[in-house]
């Protein structure tokens, strides 16, 4: 089957009424979640996972991927109008977006962000479509050593780039791996670390952990902060939102650069949309002929990062689908979802589940069109949603966390786990540990252990096998470098700088 036949198959799946409905629900909820400060795409995906049990995996991933894309669009609205990022990938948009809004140009800022996001999102899916099968074919030759090295690289890069304290990031990662050891060992049949509790035999479930850390944990962390929001008044008619010819001339290359940069950064393990948006802004300021306008309402300063974060969110799907290694916290939670649905991400996914993969790809094209319409034509609707008090939103999220955690196995035990991880997530967030690294490790732990044990069984030189095969040697060395750099830096400088958590996108 060639590309066009695959794509035709994808569109035939994406255009079924139910899948269209799910894509529509995903983009609307995603835009809302992106716009509302306090919950971002990770929380959104974790909270919506329980809903996907009632549908096929294809419809489920369509909704979650549409939500992820939507949150990248929606975050802009809050950045521009309130000067508070709706999610971490729109932090940098505040700089020039809010300045534009203060000068009465909120409309063009939101317009160029939506158009840039559409171009970047669509090109991102084209690149995703072209690149994934090639990467999957390459990865088919991977044996256990390469698989383990790849997981090691995925874990260490995500962790190393998280937060300001690398040691705490790695502690979070090891904690996640430890939690993944609980329950039956599939190779030997031993029950490990269960403390004699029957419920623990099945292990620490992914869903209650994800909902606890990113749902309840976020709510608790937000509960002791007073969010004051002043929304700038602006006009959002179609004519106010569409950028002028001059705006467009200034922005078009920024959008192109943001798209390319964003996609590349998104594909790399560990660097998601947040880092992409920061890099795109920096690059744009460097290449600009008038860098002094940045920070004072330069439209390129909105166009570039908003394009980059959308391209990156498409790029982050590439390693998740083809290698089973998520590139960001959101794709890590999605990966956990895939496994719960019984879908095994990795090189064989494209051969074994063509309707899943191509349905997803086709839906992403459709979702981007829907999002362009929503984010150009319906901005006032989302601005109104921002006026819902945080206290009401927070209470609703808690109810949703509890029902969602219950609905997977219909057991209160799971809800209890969710509550415990909610408190753990609160503590981790307050003390700069990384819930994202813990989640990723919990998902990858059993797979990494199995790959390592298989690699050691076929090896006659112990762990050195990781260095004896070229691909695994390169990956292992990269992973070790990823561990060594920030730990060394952290030990040299005992005091770190404050920065937003890039893995939260």
């Amino acid at each position: 089957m060639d590309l066009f036949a695959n794509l035709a198959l994808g569109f035939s799946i994406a255009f079924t009424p139910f899948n269209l409905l799910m894509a529509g629900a995903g983009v609307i909820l995603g835009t809302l979640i992106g716009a509302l400060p306090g919950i971002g795409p990770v929380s959104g995906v974790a909270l919506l996972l329980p809903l996907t049990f009632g549908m096929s995996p294809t419809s489920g991933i369509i909704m979650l991927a549409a939500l992820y894309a939507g949150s990248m669009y929606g975050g802009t609205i809050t950045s521009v109008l309130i000067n508070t990022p709706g999610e971490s990938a729109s932090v940098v948009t505040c700089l020039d977006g809010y300045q534009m809004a203060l000068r009465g140009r909120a409309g063009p800022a939101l317009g160029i962000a939506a158009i840039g996001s559409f171009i970047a999102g669509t090109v991102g899916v084209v690149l995703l479509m072209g690149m994934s099968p090639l990467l999957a074919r390459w990865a088919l030759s991977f044996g256990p050593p390469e698989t383990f090295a790849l997981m090691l690289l995925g874990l260490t890069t995500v962790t190393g780039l998280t937060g300001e304290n690398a040691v705490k990031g790695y502690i979070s990662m090891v904690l996640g791996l430890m939690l993944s050891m609980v329950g039956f060992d599939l190779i030997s049949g031993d029950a490990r670390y269960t403390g004699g509790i029957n419920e623990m035999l099945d292990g620490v479930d992914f869903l209650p952990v994800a909902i606890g850390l990113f749902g309840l944990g976020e709510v608790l962390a937000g509960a002791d902060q007073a969010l004051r929001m002043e929304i700038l008044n602006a006009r959002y008619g179609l004519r106010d939102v569409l950028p002028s010819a001059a705006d467009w001339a200034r922005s078009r290359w920024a959008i192109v650069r943001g798209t390319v940069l964003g996609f590349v950064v998104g594909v790399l393990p560990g660097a998601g949309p947040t880092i992409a948006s920061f890099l795109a802004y920096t690059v744009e300021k460097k290449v600009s002929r008038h860098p002094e306008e940045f920070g004072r309402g330069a439209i390129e300063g909105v166009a570039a990062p908003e394009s980059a974060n959308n391209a990156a969110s498409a790029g982050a799907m590439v390693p998740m689908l083809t290698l089973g290694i998520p590139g960001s916290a959101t794709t890590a939670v999605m990966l956990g979802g895939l496994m719960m649905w019984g879908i095994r991400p990795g090189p064989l996914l494209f051969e074994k589940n063509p309707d899943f993969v191509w349905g997803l790809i086709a839906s992403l094209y459709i979702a981007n069109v829907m999002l362009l319409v929503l984010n150009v034509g319906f901005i006032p609707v989302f601005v109104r949603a921002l006026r819902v008090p945080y206290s009401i939103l927070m209470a609703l999220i808690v109810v949703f966390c509890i029902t969602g955690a219950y609905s997977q196995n219909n057991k209160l035990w799971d809800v209890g786990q969710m509550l415990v991880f909610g408190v753990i997530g609160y503590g981790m967030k307050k003390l700069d540990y990384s819930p994202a690294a813990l989640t990723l490790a919990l998902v990858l732990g059993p797979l990494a252990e199995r790959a390592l044990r298989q690699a050691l069984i076929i090896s006659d030189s112990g762990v050195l096998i990781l260095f004896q095969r070229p691909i695994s040697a390169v990956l292992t060395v990269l992973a070790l470098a990823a561990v060594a750099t920030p730990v060394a830096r952290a030990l040299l400088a005992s005091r770190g700088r404050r920065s937003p958590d890039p893995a939260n996108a």
Partner: protein
Amino acid sequence: MRRADRVGAVLLLLFGVWFAAVALRYYTYWGATGPGSGFFPFWLGVAMTVLAAFLLVQAAREPDPGPAWIPRGRGAVRFLGVLGASVAFVALMPWLGMVLGTVLFLIVILRVLERHSWPTALGVAAGTAAVNWAVFTWWLRVPFPAGVLGF
């Protein structure tokens, strides 16, 4: 935060040692064909011990006590209120059932804790319970505890 880091580092260090010790004591480190069920956990325990030692050194050298992280005043009330109400909601679910539990939970949070007006609290509570019932009970067929009302 500095004190939390010091205490946390010591606890994590002990946890790492315990984790590695359990792996060696109760599970097989190396079997007939290769690594057993204790191999990976043992090294995880070692890794945690080393990392926690790093953190301890880091926190011990830190001159700045850092920002306070435990919520106080209104923040603490909200934190404990939300957490307490959630725990009570879950603990009482077998008796209250999902629908009544949701309504009571939201009234406690919105009316008692957040001081919203009665109409707001009741409206949000009733609306959420209805949507929740429609999505989870009617569509996804999740068998929630029925409780005293029978639904």
